């Protein structure tokens, strides 16, 4: 197994080396901005909402919002990391082509890249959860497990988007992904309010996309209510695994098609 993954680890190492030079630029977008957002909405706006009573949500708004925001934040970072950096590797700096001239195979290159994205979002999720705990936004120690769930949610977006990005020559279509995919999901997948508040005809969209499943799982873990409906929890997990797994297979395919011509 280690011998099998050693070449992928070298592709991963390149991304690590790059990040060591560019991490400062990611601090605001990946870490500070989502945390400020959580505090402003959860504590600032939350105080108003909670004044009307917490009966509707059953918990203070901050505790409702924070785990949802965790999943959404990780989704956003994962999606961003799966567009422009992939395009750079294929088209701009042609990093992947340079790798392919060596013993690395397209699958090694792709897996190293996805592995790196998983690392990046693990960092984002871990710091976010630490801040949640510090501000009393988590009710259960199970919140620790919302880190891997958030990462899985991120990969459910990252892998399919990376597969698509590897086929592109220009960045034109990326803004469409964010405009028509990521941003609407961010707003309407149960992060800020339960999806039951949506018109009935919009709710199925939440059910068939990964974010809502990630938000629900993270929230049940953070609130400690995961045991209430274990079957549903398994359904959420299964949906995320299908998106992430399918996306990884698709990425292996599109990397190969692009690099082997």
């Amino acid at each position, binding site marked *: 197994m280690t011998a099998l993954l050693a070449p992928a680890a070298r592709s991963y190492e390149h991304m690590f080396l790059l990040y060591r030079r560019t991490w400062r630029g990611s601090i605001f977008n990946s870490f500070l901005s989502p945390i400020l957002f959580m505090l402003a909405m959860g504590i600032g706006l939350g105080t108003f909402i909670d004044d009307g009573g917490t009966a509707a949500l059953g918990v203070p708004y901050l505790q409702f919002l924070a785990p949802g925001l965790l999943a959404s934040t990780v989704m956003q970072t994962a999606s961003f990391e799966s567009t422009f950096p992939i395009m750079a590797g294929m088209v701009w700096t*042609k*990093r992947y082509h340079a790798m392919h001239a060596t013993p690395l195979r397209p699958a090694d290159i792709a897996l190293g890249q996805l592995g790196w994205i998983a690392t990046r979002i693990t960092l984002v999720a871990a710091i976010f959860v630490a801040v949640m705990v510090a501000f009393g936004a988590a009710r259960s120690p199970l919140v620790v497990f919302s880190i891997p769930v958030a990462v899985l949610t991120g990969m459910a977006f990252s892998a399919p988007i990376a597969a698509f990005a590897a086929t592109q020559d220009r960045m034109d279509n990326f803004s469409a992904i964010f405009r028509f995919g990521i941003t609407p999901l961010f707003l309407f997948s149960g992060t800020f309010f339960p999806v039951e508040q949506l018109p009935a005809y919009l709710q199925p969209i939440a059910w068939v996309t990964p974010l809502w499943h990630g938000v629900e799982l993270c929230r049940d873990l953070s609130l400690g209510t995961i045991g209430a409906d274990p079957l549903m929890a398994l359904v959420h997990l299964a949906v995320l695994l299908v998106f992430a797994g399918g996306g990884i297979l698709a990425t292996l395919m599109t990397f190969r098609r692009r690099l082997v011509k």
Partner: protein
Amino acid sequence: MPGTPETSLIHARGLTKRFGKLTAVDSIDFDVAPGEAFGFLGPNGAGKTSAMRMIGCVSPVTEGLLRILNLDPAIHGPQIRARIGVVPQSDTLDTELTVRDNLVIYGRYFGLARSEAARRAAELLDFVQLTDRANDRVEPLSGGMKRRLTIARSLINEPQLMLLDEPTTGLDPQARHLLWDRLYRLKQRGTTLVLTTHYMDEAEQLCDRLVVMDKARIVAEGSPRQLIDEYATREVTELRFPVGIQETLDGQLEGLGERVEKLPDRVLVYSNDGESVASAAHERGLQPETILVRRSTLEDVFLRLTGRSLIE
């Protein structure tokens, strides 16, 4: 040069590459011997890069036989790639990393330990005269420096075979000569070089033997000298006429030398004695603006073989 998969570093028979209906490489045969500097000469679109990509094991062979280091690229791609060094046509350096990190991470791709990669990187930076830029980012380097860095990078695995796809295209003359000097040193050390170029001077400087490619096929093969002897005369007389005059000279140029080639801007007369052609032209009452007598080059060979100049 006939060869076998065992004696040749590269052995190709009927090597073909098709992209859909387009045939990029059409059944070519060649062998590259160990230690040789071998060139693919031809205009853009002749199939040079497609041939190089197949040799580099990043492009599957459509048809025919290809063996590199006596291995089959379809089965042993990664093993072959581990033993060759590639200088691609366009730079694939990571412009955000430092000069040194570009080399070290590339060494890591080949499975070198970090310390060994760092040791070789330092040595190679010295070889391509970039030691003083080791800690700079790649972005601001000049074109010539980036090419030198790419060459250093391709040497990190101490390759037996180097593939250079148009190594000096786009460089100024000084940068080209520096690069040629480094490649010449590699050749002296016994590294096998395979390069593509559309510069005749580059092929003459570097190649022991070359093939001329045109429209996906090999149209001639030999050493630069052999090709010139076979397909061109010893000397060329270039006659340049005032604008509009050349078109009116029909019939007056024939028989001046062994062969007359009319280009849009000048007339080339091939002979073994260029000076006497020049006198003969004067005797016929021709009044060219300038006359230049020079030795034949590979450009003339190409012109003869294809009727077109190399850089179109």
